[in-house]
């Protein structure tokens, strides 16, 4: 009987597919949800800096003056905090892993300035508050990535620093009374 057992193993070894993936020769196919590296769609970025503040490893630097979005590839842990918190959803998780390198790679992306101004749409309006409905809860101020909104409950005042506002729309989403609008 042992002959049959051994024969089965031998035949199996001869005709079964090899267990090895043969990696460098056969490229790996990634799944849809594989976390590889962070990609940015530059025209959509409003440089609000939310990704920079949420990043647990400080891998991302957003420079509003220089109009750049910089990522240190050897610091990013692909947690996806930036993609989850990006108000414009311009950050995406790509499937291919970050390439190994002999240097510490730092990728700089130029964020186009003119296109944003001429692009039209909600991002170019002005944040407006319907003060008849406002309950001065302050949720907008707490969620503002730029700390552009100041709410005082006692004096029933709502102030916006227009220079700081990046029109990300986070306050309009969070407003419980829906009295905020970007027009």
């Amino acid at each position: 009987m042992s002959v049959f057992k051994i024969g089965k193993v031998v035949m199996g070894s001869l005709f079964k597919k090899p267990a090895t993936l043969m990696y460098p020769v056969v490229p790996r196919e990634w799944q849809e949800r594989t976390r590889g590296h962070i990609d940015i769609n530059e025209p959509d970025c409003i440089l609000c800096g939310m990704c920079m503040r949420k990043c647990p490893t400080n891998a991302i630097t957003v420079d509003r003056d220089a109009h750049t979005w910089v990522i240190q590839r050897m610091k990013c842990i692909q947690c996806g905090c930036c993609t989850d918190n990006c108000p414009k959803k311009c950050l995406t998780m790509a499937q291919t892993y970050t390439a190994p390198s002999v240097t510490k790679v730092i990728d700089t992306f130029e964020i186009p300035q003119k296109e944003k101004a001429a692009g039209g749409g909600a991002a170019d309006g002005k944040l407006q508050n319907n003060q008849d409905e406002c309950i001065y809860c302050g949720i907008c101020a707490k969620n503002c990535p730029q700390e552009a909104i100041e709410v005082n409950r006692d004096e029933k005042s709502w102030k916006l620093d227009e220079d700081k506002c990046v029109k990300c729309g986070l306050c309009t989403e969070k407003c419980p009374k829906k009295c905020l609008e970007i027009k």
Partner: protein
Amino acid sequence: MSYVAKSPWIIHYDGSSCNGCDIEVLACLTPMYDVERFGIINTGNPKHADVFMITGAVNERNKAVIKQIYDQMPEPKVVVAIGICACSGGIWEECYNVLGGIDKVIPVDCYIPGCAARPEAIIDGVVAGLGVLAGKRERMEKGLDPEGTDEAAPEAAVGAPAGTETAEAEKEAE
């Protein structure tokens, strides 16, 4: 991989890693990724090793151990930092007891990012490291310091990406 003239042996050291990257290093050695077909063997002895693979960040406790293993390895040698913690300290960078990436203690020749680093990335990174190793060996044959960067600039930095390209070209050819 045909340009690899000698079988590079590796030594793997876990410096305060969460074991995620360690598991991936070991996955490379299992039949599934099987780097042994390229002659790569995981040796426990630094005196037999060409490639020093480190996972995890450096802290005060393992600093001396890393230095000792590095010093015991014969020239030429390359250091490969695996995972974000080994590359830069990662989420532990600002911890009071963590010094940062491996490059704070010994020179690192190749960085493999990832949390955890994927076996494919580790294989690519070691191939890039072998390019550096070849460059260092050439320098030694010329009688130069393998770690130096003086005259007859080592092809190390140039050789590594070229090596990766060769692997990719082979992939495409297949």
